[in-house]
Every structure is written in structure tokens, then in C-alpha cells.
């Protein structure tokens, strides 16, 4: 153990000066993040605003920048996220309830926990390869919205489980014991007391997990979401494109005009994400107002 006072002990003014300097350095490090965010937003706004018109939202992609739009990508993203929510919410919630309310501590449940932590850290492109082999080829779903949504569901599953578990754990045990004391079964306790109490936290976690899925690009490229789509999906088996893919496509072109389109697409994407984040923060804020324990 090092001694708590440094080599300059005894010289208090010098140590105080050192402390003040380091205070400023730590503050600067923190502000660096804020400044970077500001620069990023300013950069995107500057390039994107001139391209952001109503027709941008209602046109299909085109090789002429003036006529290009994100209609197909926007609808593709809506389909993709809707289906992903449909698959991932029940499964994620079920797994969280099992692990938090039912599971005993044994080697198998420990294995599941370590495994979930590891899955949360697995690169998204690896999920893309899994989706390509499993859903696109083996289950023969083709390069459809359904295959994309299933891949995305697996990708955000660890995040939904971890977030839901944290909210369930925050519900005090006294609530469960009160229900048990009144003769409720385990499931009655969970359904009528634990879940309602944990719901705001769970919703927040689910929204944040889904907003991660909206921004993911690599797995969709892997399973072969198209970059040029001039129609909107009309069913789960249709081919599709999505906002981040369209942005990637435009940003990887050499012509300068397409950078502006990419920036405008980013503005739409960030707008969707910020709305979802705001909703999550609002739910968290509302639920903190009427906490009962």
C-alpha cells in the first residue's frame, strides 16, 4: 500500500496547487466528451440541413442526389424495429423474470449469467454472420425483414435481459414477502406486484435496447439488406433497407453531394433516437416521482 501522501508531503501549498491543476485536467477530460458531441452535431447540422426537405422523406433513393430520399429506408426501419420488439420483448422479459425470481444459485444458472454478459460484449458483426447462416440460409427466410428482425432480436436480447433484471432487482423483497404472506403463489406475486412495480424501469431499458437496434448497421449488411430499394416492405418476407444502411451507402460514395444526403439521413436517424431517449428519460422521471418505498 502506498502512503496516502505523495513525495511532496510537508509542502502544503505545492500539494494544493497540484490538486488544483489536476482538478482542471479532470474537468477538461470530461468537457472533451461534451465538446466532441457538440462538434459532431454542428458538423452534421451544417451539412445536412440544406438537404432536409419534405421530399427527402417521401422519395426513394436515386442516383441523382437532388431527387434522392429515404422513404424505403424509413419504412424498412419501422418494420424492422416493430418486428424486433415483437420477438425480443417477451423473450427478454421472460428470461429476466426467470433469472431474477425463479433461478437458484447453481452452476447452470451461473453459466447462463456469464454467458449473457459475454453475449452483450460480442461484436454485432458476429451476430450478422449467425443471422446469415441461421435465418437467411438454413431457415431459408431469404434477405427479408423477418430475418433481419430475428437477427436484431438475438443481438439486443442480452441488453434487454440485463436491463429488465436490474429493474426487477430494485423491487424490495418486503413487497414479495407481503404477497407470499397473504397466500399468493409465486406467479401471482410476480404478475400483480413485482411486475407493475418494476414496469417503468423495464420500459426504459427496452426502449434503450430498441434504440440500439435502430442504429445497428453491420449485422444488416451481413444478412444482405439491400442498399438500393425503390419500394416499401408490405410484409415480413419482403426485401428491405434501413436508415443506417442508406447512410452508409451514401457516405461511402466518392461524390460530395451524397455526403449532404448522408448528413440529412443522420439527422433523421438522430431525431428518432433522441425522441426514444427522451421518452425513456420521461418514463424514468415520472416513475421517480411516485416511488412508494
Amino acid at each position, binding site marked *: 500500500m502506498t*502512503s496516502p501522501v505523495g513525495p511532496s508531503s510537508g509542502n502544503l501549498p505545492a500539494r494544493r496547487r497540484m490538486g488544483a491543476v489536476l*482538478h482542471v485536467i479532470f474537468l477538461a477530460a470530461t468537457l*472533451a*466528451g461534451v465538446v466532441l458531441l457538440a462538434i459532431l452535431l454542428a*458538423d452534421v447540422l451544417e451539412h445536412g440541413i440544406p438537404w432536409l426537405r419534405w421530399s427527402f422523406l417521401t422519395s426513394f433513393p436515386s442516383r441523382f442526389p437532388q431527387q434522392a430520399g429515404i422513404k424505403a429506408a424509413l419504412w424498412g426501419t419501422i418494420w424492422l424495429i416493430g418486428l424486433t420488439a415483437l420477438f425480443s420483448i417477451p423473450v427478454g422479459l421472460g428470461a429476466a423474470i426467470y433469472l431474477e425470481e425463479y433461478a437458484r444459485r447453481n452452476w447452470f444458472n451461473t453459466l447462463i449469467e456469464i454467458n449473457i454478459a*459475454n453475449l452483450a460484449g460480442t461484436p454485432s*458483426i458476429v451476430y450478422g*454472420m449467425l443471422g446469415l447462416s441461421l435465418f437467411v440460409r438454413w431457415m431459408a427466410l431469404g434477405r427479408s425483414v423477418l430475418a433481419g428482425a430475428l437477427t436484431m432480436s438475438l443481438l439486443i436480447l442480452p441488453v434487454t435481459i440485463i436491463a429488465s433484471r436490474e429493474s426487477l432487482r430494485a423491487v424490495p423483497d418486503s413487497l414479495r414477502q407481503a404477497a407470499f404472506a397473504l397466500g399468493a403463489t409465486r406467479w401471482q406475486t410476480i404478475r400483480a406486484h413485482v411486475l407493475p412495480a418494476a414496469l417503468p424501469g423495464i420500459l426504459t431499458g427496452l426502449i434503450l435496447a430498441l434504440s440500439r437496434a435502430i442504429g445497428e448497421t*453491420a449485422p444488416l449488411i451481413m444478412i444482405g439488406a439491400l442498399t438500393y430499394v425503390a419500394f416499401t416492405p408490405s410484409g415480413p418476407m419482403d426485401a428491405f433497407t434501413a436508415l443506417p444502411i442508406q447512410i452508409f451507402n451514401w457516405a461511402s460514395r466518392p461524390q460530395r453531394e451524397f455526403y449532404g444526403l448522408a448528413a440529412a439521413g443522420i439527422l433523421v436517424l438522430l431525431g428518432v433516437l433522441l425522441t426514444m431517449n427522451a421518452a425513456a428519460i420521461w418514463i424514468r422521471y415520472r416513475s421517480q416521482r411516485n416511488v412508494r418505498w
Partner: protein
Amino acid sequence: MFLCALLSVVTTAEIIWVLARETWSFFRQVPVFSFLFGTRWTPLFQPPSFGVLPLVCGTALVVVGAALVAIPLGLGSGIFLSEYASDRLRGILKPVLEVLAGIPTVVYGYFALTFVTPLLVRLFPATQVFNAASGAVVVGVMILPMIASLCDDALRAVPQSLRHAGYALGATRFEVATHVVLPGALSGVLASFVLALSRAIGETMAVTLAAGATPKLTLNPLESIQTMTAYIVQVSLGDTPAGGIPYLTIYAVGMLLFVITMGLNLLANRILRRFHEVYE
């Protein structure tokens, strides 16, 4: 509900099975040794060569650069948030970091191309249009909030009584932060670095857009390189027929990627368990 939890294990098993099966058929045609230690990666040209080292080197270049950006800034932010910031300031800064963490990676890729690279070209005229440094900077920015937030959590878990003991011995605030709190939270801080590096290795879109598509063994960050992830994207964007060797290479590279990140994740887990200081 048990089945839902089981699905996560099944997912891991399937990832390993899918990657292993295709990697196996790849290694039946290309020796393992020449894959792992070969220094030329030209699987799409004639004559093909399958040495993965240039891709690993490109990835390492980006990851080291990202760590140089993110570790000092992230640790500094973590210390500031936990030891210096008032509750009100924290309430503002934390959501900002969360927003920074929630920005999609393709946006960072765009940012690298249109902002960071022109800046680098002005500073170092030798910079190529696609270069490792630009990718490294934005990947660093991307993992910064993760390090800051995890360090903040770890530092705040150190009990207040230790800080008070430090002050009682006459230490200044800075000395308490660096000599008492930081050593006490070392396991969490180190684990956050390892997790962030694992994230940087798996990062795909930003490096695909910014770092180029030229696999080569170089230590010059201003040159165009290719990372493992960018190679996988490049192949899957083209029309490579399924079953051919070029198609199998992405699974071999993906397997390597998965093994490396899983190793790092488990390492972080071990650091947390092994060196965790237990406070009463």
C-alpha cells in the same frame, strides 16, 4: 421462462457452431499455420494468400490509437464525475455521455470521413484519404463514454469512510482521489479498460468507412489499412458466391474475432472477481 433464459445459451452455442463449421471447411483447404502467421492477405486475388496478420495488425493499430484517446479522457471523466462534480453537474454530464454512447457507429464513420480526416490532412499532409488514425480517433470517442461511466460506477462503489480517513490524515482531495479511491476501485477500472478494448476490436462501421480497404502490415497510422471487421463487410457487400474459399474466409476471420473478444470479456470478468476489494 426457463426456455427464454436458455435461448441465450443456445445463441452462444449456435454462434460457435456456425463459425466453427465454416472455419473447419476453410482450414481443410488452407493450413492453420499459414492463416495465423502469414503476412500477406490477398484472398480475392490470384494467387490467393491467406495470412491474417495484416488484418490483425490493422485492427491493433486502430485499437491502440483508440485506447490512447479513450483511456486518459475516460478515466479523467470518471474521476471527475465521481470525486469532483456536484450532484447537479453530474445530472447534466451523465445524460450527455449517455447520448454520446447512443450515437450509431455509422454516424461516427461519417464524422471520421468528413471531419477528422480533413483535420488530419491539414495537420499531417502525408495523410491518405483513408487512414487508420481517423478510424482510431472516432473509435476512441465511441468507447470513451463506456470507460467514463464504468469508472464512475467503480469509483463510487468505494465507501465514503475511506475518503474521510484520507482527509483525516491530511491528504488533499487530489491525493485522496489518486492514492485512496483509485487503488480501491482498481479492479473495476481495469475491467472497464478491457471491456472497452474488446468493444473497439469488434467495432465495424466507423473503421469500414474511415480506415480503408488495404490490408497491410504497417505501423504508420496515416496509411490506409483494413481491420478484420472491415474485411468481413467488404466481402459481404460484394457478390461472393456461397461456399467458395473467399466466402469461407469471413467465417475464419469472424471466428478469430469472436475468440479474441470473448477472451477479453472473460478476462474482464476474472479481473472483477479476482481483484475485487470487498468492503463491509
